[in-house]
């Protein structure tokens, strides 16, 4: 954007003093609001990084028994079979696309094209709403779980899952997988062991049948997986939701003509920064929660 400095703006501050830190000018050549938005985003990035690192810690600790996201998120609207991660990929695309419409609104604002700003902001809001709706849909399926469910063993922590072929998704009758984390091995990760026949029947008789995931138990395996999923995607979803709300408020201000009077659309740029940040966080959540 350099090279398009407005003459009036430039003359008011650039020749004030030669030393950028000598006062009378912003050393970063950036407006107060935008800089503060950046600082807020850095602090928010710390929060998300903290959450994702905590997730990474637990995931590395329970490396051998951590559920595979590909087994959990297999639903696709109006389709009965299993497609791994297709819907999340769609959600990611929607969010990236809404990031592009946002940046186009910002760009139109730099040319003072009110109509254009309105148009792109509406698309951004629609994209954000689709994303939040998709996330609700995803939570619904995660909370409700699969039709056959799983068994929570006596100890109230360990989950005995049905053995399902990862490729054909066919369930093996009366064969279960139980995490082996009590064998006292010092160096080897132990993973799961198969249980069937009489042993399985005894364990099943003392177990509780569970379906889906809550904060306390998780059909797909270790409850921590569900806890982190709810907390991190929930926190991110809340960011998207508030982003949609703020976008809508700014959109009303655009329609009302406030920024035509102010002479610049910097407010759109600021909410744009927030919106892109939400997209940025999702890129990481997508990788660490769904892909890895």
């Amino acid at each position, binding site marked *: 954007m350099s090279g398009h400095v407005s003459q009036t*703006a430039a003359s008011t501050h650039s020749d004030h003093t030669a030393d950028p830190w000598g006062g009378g000018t912003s050393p970063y050549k950036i407006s107060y609001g935008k800089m503060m938005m950046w600082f807020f985003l850095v602090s928010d990035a710390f929060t998300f990084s903290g959450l994702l690192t905590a997730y990474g810690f637990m995931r590395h600790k*329970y490396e051998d028994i951590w559920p*595979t996201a590909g087994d959990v998120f297999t639903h696709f609207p109006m389709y009965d079979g299993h497609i791994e991660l297709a819907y999340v990929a769609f959600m990611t695309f929607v969010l990236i696309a809404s990031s*592009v419409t946002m940046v186009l609104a910002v760009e139109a604002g730099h040319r003072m094209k009110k109509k254009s700003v309105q148009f792109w902001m509406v698309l951004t809001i629609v994209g954000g709403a689709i994303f939040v709706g998709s996330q609700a849909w995803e939570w619904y399926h995660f909370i409700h779980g699969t039709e056959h469910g799983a068994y929570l063993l006596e100890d109230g922590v360990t989950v005995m899952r049905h053995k399902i072929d990862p490729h054909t998704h066919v369930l093996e009758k009366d064969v279960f997988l139980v995490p082996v984390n*009590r064998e006292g*091995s010092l160096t080897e990760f132990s993973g799961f062991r198969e249980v069937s026949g009489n042993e399985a029947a005894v364990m099943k008789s003392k177990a509780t049948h569970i379906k889906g995931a809550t904060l306390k138990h998780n059909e797909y395996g270790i409850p921590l997986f569900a806890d982190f999923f709810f907390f991190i995607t929930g926190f991110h979803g809340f960011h998207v939701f508030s982003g949609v709300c703020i976008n809508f408020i700014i959109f009303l201000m655009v329609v009302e003509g406030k920024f035509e009077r102010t*002479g610049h659309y910097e407010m759109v740029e600021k909410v744009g920064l927030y919106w*892109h940040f939400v997209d940025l966080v999702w890129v990481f959540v997508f990788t660490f929660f769904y892909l890895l």
Partner: protein
Amino acid sequence: MDARDDIYEYSLDTHHSEEAGQKMRKKFYFVLALLSVVTIIEVAMGMIWSRDESMKEILKYSFIILTLFKAGYITMVFMHLGDEKKSFQTVVLAPYFILIGYLIFICLSEALYVGEFRPAVENYFGL
């Protein structure tokens, strides 16, 4: 509106012409295509190799590299950080990378250690 001399206004600095805008829009669409393609590649890689134990490490690091690649484009192009002054880029990025780099290093290395001895520890305490 009279200009106030106690506030320095930079909000107008980003205004640009029609031609400049056209060039920028082209760039945005290019980045959209690039990020979509990278996402599709990631999902395809996951579908093909996620259950292949021998590919696990390669997959993990290629996902992380591709994610950082996407994140770089979002911050530098969409958030216009690439257009800000170098000193401002440093102010935003340096604290983040120093602190979070350390956090990731310490947490993940600790986690691997704790995880390695988890079975023995849980056994000892009868968990």
